């Protein structure tokens, strides 16, 4: 596979770095198809020009190294930071605002050239616009600026040194100098430095849980056991851990070509979908921009047609752009999201990507890894069989359920056997800790048994018991014999042989059985009962171990020299004592969390690298599978002949998945509610996620292992485990559950849905004030009245007075039980819907605008310009040469005082918008409930009302604000828009009342956003 890959790259040398990166991504996506694990060893050695005894010659190795490059992971190409920054500066509304700013500067320059006067108004405005763009751009940039350290985290998994045999000599080299064909020595505790085919092994076991999700250490020998490289027993993978034994093997893949390297490359290069909220915002900004451009062009054109000068037309354009664009909205949304992110962090959900806060709320499918996510990644004794009955083993400290079995003699004998035939030991110095938290040296299953024994307290403490019954001989577990034997000297002087192993092997050696306090002959009937019990446990996905013992004859006393090779003691006709079965149990909170997800309309799909039986058992336990009937799709034939059963669950094997087309996968994902994917490879996890996304679902992926990383990255939201999760998974994820508690996801969903609702309210609030910003300009152009609201005042509304109230809506509590409704439909249930535009623009905005115009006309009239006089007055009003404009009372106004009056109107108009926005804020607190039901408990919102008012006062009453065209406003003018504010509240309360009363009524259809 490596040669193929290299050729591709060489051929494309002329391509850009980005294209190479893409090509690599496509290559990484493909499933590994290789025969390096299955070809005869001699053939492999020939292929790699190596020797199975002496390895590569050093100079040969150096040559290959020069050709293939070091055994490291190639980092993905990165976009330069400055490019990213510029991108944020030209993103969304920024383009429009840039246009506005440029028009301002152009107006200044033209004025400079023609009249040599400084047009300070436009200069200030242009500068403010530029500052707004740069500040919001910078704000977004720093929020999005997440250091993606995926590659670094993968690099951390590479061991620094490796032991190789080159030219017959054993040497330690830097693992980056490792090349294909190298002969490598591995021992327990090492990290595997490359993908290695094992040619010689001594009890060698590796921990593959990061890669495949199998909880137990896997034995590795020199036999090829499967066509699938991931399942073959003669292959060890780059960066997995050796836990036991020693082995020697030949490197067959290095660096990026290793299984892990491919996962790393895939993960680092995958581009996740845009988050739903980003898509929503983009859509919204597109609509607003198009609308702004449309209005701008129409009115710019109209102005030109009405013989306004180019400069004036461009000033209209600036005004219309500034009025249409909610400048503060992006910052508001970001702050709202970070407010929720903080809340979630307090509930142990650390959000890395701010936009992911909402994604969880829209999630419709959770693809969950099993090991370490749904389960504890800790083998535990689950059931035991003695006295011909299965008992549920109680592994809690309280031992409440243990009463039904722990009195019997059979149980004691089983426990004796389990204690003695066990190599695991507690680590010293942790005796005070609770048993379950104490660390154990040894195999995961043995650890589980040891802890169980310790908890049952049948034989005081295992260590003391073992001390009293010293071990005389031990034959460790091997994959060929599949059992483990130890011989102990008992206190009474006799010797006991105990044996543990695969149940069928153990039963084959037994002729007696210990049953109800008596040793009986193991009749065929009893044997059948034992077999049945064993099968029953195995079907639960549990790992069953059989136990037997034999009290040796007196001739085998303590001083007898027991010998393992060849064994000089009887190993047949043993006495069977019972089974114990182990499983990696689900985390206790998971079943409840899964149930809550389901009731919130979210499907939970299990995607695991583990065996189908285990996967199914866990799926049942946690409630992912609730259906009575489960279809096992272990091969393609089943899929092809499958009728559609919606009420059935399905378990799909990885090998089946490999043969399925995308359409078939889509059908499965569509038709089955309860799905478990077992034995999946990392790329298949990715395939499943992409399948769901193809169906328009929003997918959350939970996982803890390296094998989950690509899926985590590709998912709409990747959720990693904080304690047990690997660093790679945490780097690829958008969210980290700090306490590993799956139930936190439910909290996340709840918060996500709430913030989505609240963002809607926030946007509805912000958009409403756009109408009183736009209409003055339109009135200015169309009916030729003096401008009622200046551009600077518009900016102050958008950026100062409206900001905090909009943010405060993020703190609003949910209106109903948001966990009882299905996830939103990303196609129709948008953030900003047509109804929202109608309500914000067509209803509330218009009322606000009317309030503003009323205040404007009132102030003008109080000063002498009655409304009818204002129409068509614009030219005279704005002419600097007319110093004696007559008002309705015969008074004559100079240009200066006229402008002061106009600016007073700007301020008053702004204040009227503030006043009506008070009402709007109260109205926006709820979407359907009455304000009386919701209450005014949101203190942040109440404070924001005060702050908003104080800001408006400051703008109006600070004397130096004259430079920005703000003038003091009489107190009574504040009150003029109160009727309109009241009208907003009354109208909206009536609307909501109607909506509550008639849930299918016209009002609800048309205005429930």
């Amino acid at each position, binding site marked *: 596979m490596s040669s193929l890959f290299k050729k591709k790259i060489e051929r494309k040398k002329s391509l850009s770095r980005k294209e190479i990166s893409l090509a690599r991504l496509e290559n990484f996506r493909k499933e590994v198809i290789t025969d390096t694990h299955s070809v005869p060893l001699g053939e492999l050695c020939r292929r790699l020009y190596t020797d199975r005894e002496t390895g590569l010659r050093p100079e040969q190795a150096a040559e290959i190294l020069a050709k293939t490059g070091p055994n490291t992971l190639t980092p993905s190409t990165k976009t330069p930071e400055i490019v990213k920054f510029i991108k944020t500066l030209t993103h969304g509304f920024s383009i429009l605002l840039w246009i506005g700013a440029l028009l301002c500067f152009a107006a200044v320059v033209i004025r400079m050239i023609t009249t040599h006067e400084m047009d300070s108004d436009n200069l200030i405005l242009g500068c403010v616009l530029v500052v707004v763009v740069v500040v919001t751009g910078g704000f977004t940039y720093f929020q999005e600026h997440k250091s993606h350290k995926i590659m670094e985290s993968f690099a951390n998994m590479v061991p620094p040194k490796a032991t190789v045999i080159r030219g017959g000599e054993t040497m330690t080299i830097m693992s980056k100098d490792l090349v294909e064909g190298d002969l490598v020595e591995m021992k327990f505790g090492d990290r595997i430095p490359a993908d290695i085919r094992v040619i010689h092994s001594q009890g060698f076991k590796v921990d593959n849980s990061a890669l495949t999700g199998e909880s137990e250490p896997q034995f590795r020998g020199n036999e090829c056991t499967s066509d699938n490289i991931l399942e073959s027993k003669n292959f060890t993978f780059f960066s997995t851990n050796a836990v036991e034994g020693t082995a020697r093997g030949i490197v067959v893949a290095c660096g990026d070509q290793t299984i892990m390297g491919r996962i790393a490359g895939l993960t680092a290069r995958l581009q996740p979908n845009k988050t739903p909220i980003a898509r929503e915002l983009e859509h919204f900004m597109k609509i607003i921009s198009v609308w702004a451009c449309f209005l701008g062009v129409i009115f710019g054109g109209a102005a030109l047609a009405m013989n306004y000068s180019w400069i004036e037309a461009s000033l209209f354009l600036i005004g219309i752009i500034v009025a249409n664009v909610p400048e503060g909205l992006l910052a508001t949304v970001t702050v709202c999201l970070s407010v929720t992110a903080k809340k979630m962090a307090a509930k142990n959900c650390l959000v890395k990507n701010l936009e992911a806060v909402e994604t969880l709320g829209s999630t419709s499918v959770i693809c969950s890894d099993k090991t370490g996510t749904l389960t504890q990644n800790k083998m535990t004794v689950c059931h035991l069989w003695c006295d011909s009955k299965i008992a549920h083993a109680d592994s809690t400290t309280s031992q409440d359920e243990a009463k039904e079995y722990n009195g019997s003699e059979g149980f004691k004998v089983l426990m004796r056997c389990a204690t003695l035939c066990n190599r695991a030991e507690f680590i010293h110095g942790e005796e005070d800790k609770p048993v379950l938290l104490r660390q154990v040296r040894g195999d995961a299953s043995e650890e589980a048994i040891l802890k169980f024994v310790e908890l049952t307290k049948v034989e005081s403490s295992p260590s003391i018991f073992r001390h009293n019954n010293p071990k005389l001989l031990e034959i460790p577990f091997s994959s060929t014999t599949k059992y483990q034997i130890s011989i102990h000297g008992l206190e009474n002087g006799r010797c006991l042989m105990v044996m543990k192993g695969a149940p069928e092997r153990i039963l084959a050696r037994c002729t007696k059985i210990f049953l109800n306090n008596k040793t009986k002959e193991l009749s065929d009937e009893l044997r059948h009962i034992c077999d049945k019990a064993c099968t029953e446990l195995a079907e639960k996905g549990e790992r069953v171990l059989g136990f037997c013992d034999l009290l040796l004859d007196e001739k085998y006393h303590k001083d007898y020299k027991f010998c393992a090779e060849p064994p000089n003691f009887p190993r047949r006709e043993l006495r069977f004592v019972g089974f114990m079965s182990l499983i990696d149990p*689900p985390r206790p909170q998971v079943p409840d969390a899964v149930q809550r997800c389901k009731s919130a309309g979210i499907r939970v799909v299990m995607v695991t690298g583990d065996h189908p039986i285990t996967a199914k058992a866990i799926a049942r336990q946690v409630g992912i599978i*609730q259906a009575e009937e489960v279809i096992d799709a272990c091969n393609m034939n089943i899929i092809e002949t499958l009728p559609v059963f*919606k009420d059935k669950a399905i378990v799909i094997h990885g090998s089946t998945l490999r043969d399925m087309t995308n359409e078939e996968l889509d059908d499965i994902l569509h038709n089955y509610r309860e799905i478990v994917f077992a034995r999946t490879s990392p790329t298949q996890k990715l395939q499943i996620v992409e399948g769901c996304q193809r169906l328009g679902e929003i997918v959350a992926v939970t996982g803890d292992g390296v094998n989950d990383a690509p899926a985590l990255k590709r998912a709409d939201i990747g959720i990693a485990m904080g304690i047990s999760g690997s660093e790679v998974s945490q780097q690829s994820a958008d969210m980290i559950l700090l306490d590993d508690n799956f139930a936190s996801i439910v909290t996340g969903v709840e918060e996500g849905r709430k913030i989505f609702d609240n963002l809607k309210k926030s946007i509805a609030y912000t958009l409403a004030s756009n109408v009183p910003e736009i209409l003055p300009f339109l009135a200015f152009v169309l009916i030729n009245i003096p401008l009622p609201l200046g551009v600077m005042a518009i900016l102050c509304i958008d950026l100062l007075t409206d900001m905090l109230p909009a943010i405060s809506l993020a703190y609003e509590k949910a209106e109903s039980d948001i966990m009882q409704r299905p996830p939103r439909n990303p196609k129709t249930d948008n953030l900003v819907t047509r109804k929202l535009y109608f309500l914000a623009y067509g209803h509330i905005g218009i009322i606000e605008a009317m309030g503003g115009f009323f205040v404007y006309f009132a102030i003008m009239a109080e000063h002498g310009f009655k409304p009818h006089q204002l129409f068509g007055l614009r030219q005279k009003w704005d002419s600097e*040469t007319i110093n004696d404009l007559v008002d309705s009372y015969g008074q*004559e106004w100079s240009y200066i005082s006229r402008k002061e009056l106009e600016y007073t109107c700007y301020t008053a108009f702004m204040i009227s918008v503030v006043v009506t926005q008070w009402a709007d804020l109260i109205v926006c607190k709820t979407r359907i409930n009455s304000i009386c039901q919701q209450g005014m408990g949101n203190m942040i919102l109440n404070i924001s009302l005060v702050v908003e008012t104080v800001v408006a006062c400051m703008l109006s009453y600070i004397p130096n604000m004259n430079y920005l065209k703000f003038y003091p406003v009489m107190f009574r003018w504040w009150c003029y828009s109160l*009727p309109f504010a009241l009208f907003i509240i009354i109208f909206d309360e009536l609307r909501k009342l109607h909506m509550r009363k008639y849930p299918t009524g016209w009002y609800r259809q048309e205005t429930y956003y």
Partner: protein
Amino acid sequence: MPSSNNLRKQPSRSLSKQDELLSIQTQYFVKLEDLKLTRKQKCLRFVYDTDTKKVMGRTPTSWSKIGLFYLIFYGMLAALVAICMWVFLQTLDPRIPKWQQDASVIGTNPGLGFRPMPKDNEESTLIWLQGTNKANYLNWFDNIMEFLDKYYTPGKIEKGNAYLKTCSYTEWPTETEVCEVDVKDWGDCSRDQFFNYYRSSPCIFLKLNKIYGWTPDYYDDPYDLPPDMPKHLQDHIRNITRLEERRNIWVSCEGENPADVEYLGPVQFYPPVQGFPGYYFPFRNSEGYLSPLVAVRFLRPVSGIVINIECRAWAKNIHYNRAERMGSVHFELLID
């Protein structure tokens, strides 16, 4: 696992709820036929959908419903505005502004205005006079006459309850009287002489902005005149012996720069008192009130050169600021 046991025992009711949710969920899936449509087809279907009879996304009934709703809603809103406006207008007096002088934005610093104002260009203050061109000076004549019409034919302005009175420094008007402006006071700057435009010694009329209730504070003490007051105006004031006759808002006109002063030549003011007599103030918006005017005649301005002229009004409560054009007026004169 106790909880898992519970789950298995759960009634089938929860399953049916799940089914319901699933059916909602399946609606999410992309409709295949939607994907097949091109952008143009989608647009066309949006404009008119033959299947659902939807025009622009709505059926005709839906359109009429929403149209009716907005009609009612905006009708209510319009009613609200109308009520507010009506109530508000009731609080206004038809003759007396609500806010006066310092309470109003208009303030207490009246500006000066001049006539004729160039009409062809709104932004220009250049009076470009071609004395030999009859069309040109008739143009300026018409311009002035448009403004002076009501002075020459006082009958044109509506008669109110105020009586027209010929005022003098000793006979000030009462509340119910307004002072007459006598066109004969303008001497050479009369209608009959075409305001002397044809002689290239044009008359410019100056007026003070009317501000309701504003009373001037006169420079009536010859020994307490501001130092920046032109010398000849100071002399003029000192030459007036009677105190009550010094109750005027004085007017001066000069070239802005020394060169302009030279080009401008002598200036004559009508009425000869060189100011707005005090008895015209305060302005109370009485019907029939006419602003007093001062006609300025430039006797021998140099032709062929643009002359910058600034006229100022002088009273203790008229503040002067050239940049903001307070208390003064600026215009240019060009005579060909």
